[in-house]
């Protein structure tokens, strides 16, 4: 019975996620505009953009591998949405929570990026292939600090003798802040910072938008996309912001208000969205406005050396904290 | 070194009569054959900066007049060297051995717009015009009004009529 309700809820959640993603895209643009001393577009602008893209002609370049070129936007959006069902979203528990864990989420997070790589390589444009190469390099760079952070959380849960530490119920059921002492707290803050720094990379925003870098390679992986296909990528990107920040929330801020019933779900959802927007503001909008694009070599450097070092320091602090 | 020293030096070395137009402006005219030597001499005297090369067309006399505008960073004055070449088969030594790329690009432009051949300049591919089939467009006898009228204007268009007169 529960299973069937869950399956029915899937399109609802997907719809909500898309709306929230686009809404945040609108808020992001207004906030960025205000920080740049502009008025900015209306909040509905992303919806209008998607609508416009959907009614535009879908041009497929002659040199492309057509079936790959057409299927990758769908794969990208679908895989992004699937991750959502493994995560607690709003006031709801994870819909497919019983069937997957953090490791699966980590793997699934790679799929949209891979879809973009394949999309770029299949479109048969030199700009797109440069973009695809850059995207691959970037994936390899940001996965490492991300993995360290997630694993260290799971390790923390293991040492606290919580069963099944990689499952999402365990993670969301036991807020990590309660499991550590002062040193561990510092370690956790470092981990959170690293995760926030990975956010723009994962989302492909400035300063990590090297794969799309419109001033360098004219839009990179997406250069040949138009119309419906571009709209799907646009949606996937908007949803991915929600998804990735939901992971951060699940790992670090799984708190609810503790009210039961429908009112509780509603209140929790509201709280969730506030957390979501705040984290996105710090992790994406603010960094985007304050920085300029990295070179690809700099991307690799910042993720492999400083981020990994900070991440490992955090882990070490947590280790010391447990030993004490 | 100031302008007067240079004028004396040119007189002594090449027998050319340079003239001071106003402060920091020296003008001189040389024969085509002596041009390279004079330019080399001027470069050695510190006129390191080739500000511009220009061509003026005199269809009446059948000549092109080339002007080289040289600036000295050290002594702050401008020397303009004028020389003439035939209009029918305009050809002159290139200044690229002296000023390098900066002369090269000016010569490339003039080759395209006036049809002057600069001997010794390796790269004289057209810069601005694409698929140009007419004569060099900046010559005085090139009737661009007629060319444009025939090639581009729409005879039917009422609004383009004033341009055809």
């Amino acid at each position, binding site marked *: 019975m529960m299973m069937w309700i869950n399956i029915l809820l899937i399109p609802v959640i997907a719809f909500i996620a898309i709306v929230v993603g686009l809404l945040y895209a609108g808020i992001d643009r207004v906030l960025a505009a*205000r*920080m*740049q*001393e502009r*008025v*900015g577009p209306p909040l509905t602008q992303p919806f209008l953009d998607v609508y416009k893209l959907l009614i535009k002609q879908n041009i497929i370049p002659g040199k492309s591998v057509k079936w790959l070129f057409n299927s990758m936007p769908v794969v990208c959006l679908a895989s992004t949405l699937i991750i959502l069902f493994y995560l607690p979203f709003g006031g709801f528990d994870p819909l497919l929570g019983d069937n997957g864990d953090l490791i699966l989420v980590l793997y699934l997070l790679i799929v949209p990026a891979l879809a973009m790589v394949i999309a770029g390589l299949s479109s048969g444009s030199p700009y797109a292939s440069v973009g695809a190469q850059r995207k691959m390099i970037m994936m390899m760079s940001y996965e490492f600090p991300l993995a360290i952070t997630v694993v260290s959380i799971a390790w923390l849960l293991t040492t606290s003798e919580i069963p099944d530490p990689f499952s999402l119920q365990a993670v969301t059921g036991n807020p990590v802040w309660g499991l550590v002492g002062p040193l561990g707290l510092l370690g956790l803050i470092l981990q959170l910072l690293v995760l926030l720094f990975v956010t723009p990379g994962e989302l492909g925003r400035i300063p990590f938008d090297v794969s799309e870098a419109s001033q360098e390679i004219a839009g990179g992986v997406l250069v040949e996309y138009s119309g419906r296909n571009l709209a799907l990528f646009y949606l996937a990107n908007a949803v991915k912001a929600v998804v990735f920040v939901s992971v951060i929330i699940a790992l670090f801020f799984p708190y609810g208000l503790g009210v039961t019933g429908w009112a509780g779900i509603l209140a929790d959802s509201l709280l969730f969205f506030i957390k979501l927007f705040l984290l996105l503001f710090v992790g994406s909008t603010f960094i985007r406005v*304050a920085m300029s694009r990295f070179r690809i070599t700099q991307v690799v450097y910042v993720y492999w050396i400083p981020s990994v070092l900070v991440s490992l320091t955090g882990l070490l602090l947590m280790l010391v904290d447990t030993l004490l | 070194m100031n302008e007067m020293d240079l004028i004396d030096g040119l007189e002594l070395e090449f027998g050319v009569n340079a003239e001071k137009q106003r402060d920091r402006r020296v003008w001189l005219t040389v024969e085509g054959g002596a041009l390279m030597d004079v330019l080399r001499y001027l470069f050695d005297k510190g006129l390191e900066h080739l500000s511009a090369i220009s061509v003026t067309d005199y269809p009446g006399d059948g000549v092109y007049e080339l002007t080289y505008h040289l600036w000295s960073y050290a002594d702050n004055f401008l020397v303009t060297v004028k020389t003439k070449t035939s209009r029918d088969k305009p050809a002159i030594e290139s200044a690229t051995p002296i000023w390098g790329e900066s002369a090269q690009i000016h010569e490339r432009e003039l080759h395209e717009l006036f049809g002057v051949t600069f001997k010794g300049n390796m790269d004289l591919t057209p810069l601005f015009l694409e698929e140009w089939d007419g004569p060099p467009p900046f010559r005085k006898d090139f009737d661009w009004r007629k060319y444009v009228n025939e090639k581009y204007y729409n005879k039917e268009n009422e*609004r383009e009529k004033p341009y055809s007169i």
Partner: protein
Amino acid sequence: MIKTILELIRNLFKKPMTVRFPHEQIEMPEGFRGEHAYEIDKCISCGLCCKICPNRAIEMIDAPQKDRDKYPKTYPRIDLGKCCFCGFCEDICPTDALKLTKNVYLSTFDSESVIKEPIEK
């Protein structure tokens, strides 16, 4: 780093530089060079505006048939599509019959409407 953050946060709460154009607009100063205002009764048909116009946007034409009696001479017809709004016609006009106004809302979908006839047909 701190400076950047402070600057951006300050910007966030400042009044933006841009204005929401159709709803509000910045004031246009006196002497702006916009659309022409032409007073046919002041015009002496000297044709100076036609001669000085760098873009040949002004053409001296006869008045329409019905007004021929009242206006027997030639009058400037201005093609705003060719006009560069330099204001030479205003400067050279001996009787101030041609003047530039502050009207800049000249974009149109109709290519005919960019031609300003001296007398409305």
